[in-house]
């Protein structure tokens, strides 16, 4: 093939990847090509292979695989011949269930309609027999995709993995095993026999995006196409990312996490405010969406507490300060609260013990406090040791925004000595 033609093919592929995957960097192109060649070898030449795609959550592993499969199935020969089996570690929690699912998806002869006949041992023997009878030149190749691959390594004896990898290394029906996982140490989970049969091919999807590339990507995602009817509107829309405050917001998100799933959530919540009455996105919308995304969950919960519960939380905070994080019980908290009432309070008054107990229980239900150990039967409720699950910054932040908080409570919270 001439060099010019390969270059043209490469650029075509580049554009295709950009269209389906969203963007294309040299790394992504390399991985795409590697995976595509591997699956082509299985589908067309009948060679068995196994590969693992590893990357953090939201890195685009499943998207890459889908993109490759879509490209691969464009070829007629592959489309007619390739059999696919898709398994997920979260759905098939056991080898028994996984085998039934494989048999059902391959539509072997012990399946009638949707029901698979036979016990676990029979299903395994049947599947292994079926694969053993095949050979590379005359059987249809089978592609096994195992999502959440690391969960399959927790099954008993790793039977399924051993058998799949064993078939991929024997002269039987050609199969390709593609595992997708987010754990970097997945190979340590495999038993030595299974590890020996795995071909150790790994594709690591680790993105080394700079902020400029990230910004460019967001801009590309948000921009309207050139053939949009209202050109002025499109122009206004497309210049959103030039705005300084927008850049700051995106910088904040980029600092927190580089993956695109989180930025999609942000953009989605921002886009969902677009309506007929308010057709354009303003930077302030993005700021608002960002604020919602980055809001502290527990601090929000504190806004819904009653003033007594809030006082109990502040008392716990003071106890943590004094005793440096040692666990406390209701009596200690109540005593601390009573000290505040005696010395400083004007607006609060002394509640009865059962009321305080009820408030304490409510806090426990909300999981703002947590018992130190699980044994709740041995000690009396009031003397059970607890720990606070909130950080001081969260309490202070919540107090700023608490509606109609009495000033003496606020001052009590901010004082260093309780």
């Amino acid at each position, binding site marked *: 093939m001439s060099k010019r033609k*390969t270059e043209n093919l490469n650029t075509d592929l580049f554009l295709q990847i950009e269209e389906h995957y969203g963007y294309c960097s040299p790394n992504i192109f390399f991985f795409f*090509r590697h995976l595509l060649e591997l699956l082509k070898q299985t589908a*067309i030449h*009948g060679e*068995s292979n196994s590969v693992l795609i590893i990357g953090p*959550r939201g890195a685009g592993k499943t998207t890459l695989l889908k993109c490759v499969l879509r490209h691969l199935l464009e070829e007629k020969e592959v489309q007619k*011949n390739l*059999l696919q089996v898709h398994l997920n570690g979260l759905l098939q929690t056991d080898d*028994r269930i996984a085998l039934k699912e494989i048999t059902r998806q391959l539509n*072997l*002869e*012990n399946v*009638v*309609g949707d029901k698979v006949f036979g016990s*676990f*041992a029979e299903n*395994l023997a049947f*599947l*292994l*027999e*079926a*694969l053993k009878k095949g050979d*590379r*030149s*005359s*059987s*249809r190749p089978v592609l096994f995709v195992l999502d959440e691959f690391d969960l399959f390594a927790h099954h008993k004896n790793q*039977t399924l993995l*051993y*058998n799949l990898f064993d078939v991929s*290394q*024997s*002269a039987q029906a050609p199969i390709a095993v593609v595992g997708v996982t987010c754990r*970097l*140490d997945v190979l340590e989970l495999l038993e030595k*026999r299974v*590890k*020996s*049969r795995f*071909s*150790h*091919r*790994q594709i*690591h999807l*680790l*993105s*080394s995006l700079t902020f400029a590339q990230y910004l460019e990507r967001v801009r590309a995602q948000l921009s309207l196409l050139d053939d949009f009817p209202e050109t002025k509107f499109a122009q206004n829309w497309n210049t959103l990312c030039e705005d300084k405050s927008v850049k700051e917001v995106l910088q904040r998100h980029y*600092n*927190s*996490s*580089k993956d695109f799933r989180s930025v999609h959530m942000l953009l989605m919540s921002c886009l969902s405010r677009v309506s007929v009455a308010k057709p354009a996105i303003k930077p302030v919308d993005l700021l608002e969406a960002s604020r919602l995304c*980055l809001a*502290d969950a*527990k601090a929000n919960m504190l806004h819904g507490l009653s003033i007594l519960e809030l006082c109990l939380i502040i008392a716990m905070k003071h106890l943590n300060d004094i005793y440096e994080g040692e666990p406390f019980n209701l009596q200690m908290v109540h005593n601390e609260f009573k000290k505040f009432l005696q010395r400083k309070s004007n607006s609060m008054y002394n509640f009865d013990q059962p009321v305080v107990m009820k408030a304490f229980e409510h806090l426990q239900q909300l*999981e703002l406090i947590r018992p130190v150990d699980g044994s709740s039967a041995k000690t009396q409720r009031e003397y059970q040791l607890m720990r606070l*699950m*909130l*950080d001081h910054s*969260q309490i202070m*932040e919540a107090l700023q925004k608490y509606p109609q908080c009495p000033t003496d409570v606020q001052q009590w919270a901010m004082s260093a000595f309780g």
Partner: protein
Amino acid sequence: MKYFTRVRRVYRWRGEPVSFNRKLKTYDYSSLVIGVDGLPRTTLIITGQHILIEGEDEDSPYVAKVLRLFGDESGKQKKAAVQWFVRVSEVPPNKLKLLGREPHPQEIFYYQGRSCDDEVDVESILRPVQVRRARSGIPSTVSAHPVVILDWFLFKQVTSSTPRTPRHATPSIPSRSLPARQPGNVLEEARIRLHVSSVPESLPCREQEFQDIYSFVESKIIDGTGGCMYISGVPGTGKTATVHEVMRCLQHAADVDEIPPFTFIEINGMKMTDPHQAYVQILQKLTGHKATADHAASLLEKRFSNPAPRKESTVLLVDELDLLWTRKQNVMYNLFDWPTRRHARLVVLTIANTMDLPERIMINRVASRLGLTRMSFQPYSFKQLQQIIMSRLNKVKAFEEDALQLVSRKVAALSGDARRCLDICRRATEICEHSAAERSATGLVGMSHVMEALNEMFSSSYITAVKCASVHEQLFLRAVIAEFRRLGLEEATFQQVFVQHQALCRVEGLQPIGVSEGLAVCQRLGACRLLLLEPSRLGVLQRVRLNVSQDDVLYALKAD
């Protein structure tokens, strides 16, 4: 014509026999001549022809297709193996309805039931018959001669549309529409040969082990006694492949009558769901019967205890022996006890990974029955790995010398696993094929390709992962190290680390993040296993540990 059926028919073989079946002592013939007493005219039947076979009803004899014609040495017994067909009248009406259309009265179907013999005496053959294949739909004309229309509608398929338990399910993967493509160039050819599954006829570097196992099994077969052998070695050292090679050679020797005939069966501990399934599988492979585990155990017990005339030796290969362990160890006990029976004639070869398996997991009586015939397969040295690759490639010159050496040395230093070596070489040929830009002068796989393959397949990606982490993730790792240094421990709670994280944010000039965001950063690091975390329901109180060494993290962070 009815009165002809009272005439005596004479059957004779035509021509010389085409082959001799040594086991059954029968001769195969290509054609048969049927003559009638007193009449010169004869009818010729050849294999592949459709025939009519005498049945109960004289007007509608059975239709069949001749697959084989054979007879014994004396010539008295003449038989034919046939494929039966059923007529429309023989199909039960409820099954006929499933056909979906009106069947032609002279239509026949393939019969794949197992309830009748496939072999018949040739004396029951009447005459040949013409069978025409029908296109879908009703055939238009039917001639008066004995012609029946064959519909390629498999009888079995007619019944499968009713949801019935498939009792005759045959395991198979469907066949492809076009055959697989053959290799084009040298590199592709090399790649096929380097695939782990293309095991060569004789394994290099395992000659001594081959000889030992061969002589052991051969002596047992010739003497007609039983015995046990335990083979151990790390994965990828050629244990199963060597045993298969031994059995192939022994089978060949049995075929040419050098040694008595024997049966070879193989079970694998990993391919079973439960150790007791071993009995089921052994019984099925020996006799073809299916039974439950307990019943199979008792049947095998009877078989190996009772003397039987003309009994063949059995060689049983048990792969992955350690998975057959049970609390009471009765599966292993039986497997090693049966060869000790006088009339069992059972030779058991077991394969496992550890040398001291018998001492470690077996109770005394089981270990003593296993015996002391042990063989240990050592991991391959780099010279042996080189020899293995060279012999696989045979005359195909695809690798440079020093590239091969590098791969062999690297793999030998680490594990001595032949599979690993072959996979890396295969990946190197792939890289060479696809790196059009850096095609080396000779077109062979060079050092650069091999180095790239080694980097890919031996890499630990923790450092790259830390380098590619986001700003706050890297800061969090720094905070973890700082907190560990402060506490002098290898463990800290999220709350403590978060305090450090806030301090680092201030130092770096970044906007400080909230607790929820910090927890999210921590969870992401935990999902990749850069950090080891307690369950997230503990919130800020969860303890954090590093899964990477501190030096690695600092090195990765320093390079920025």
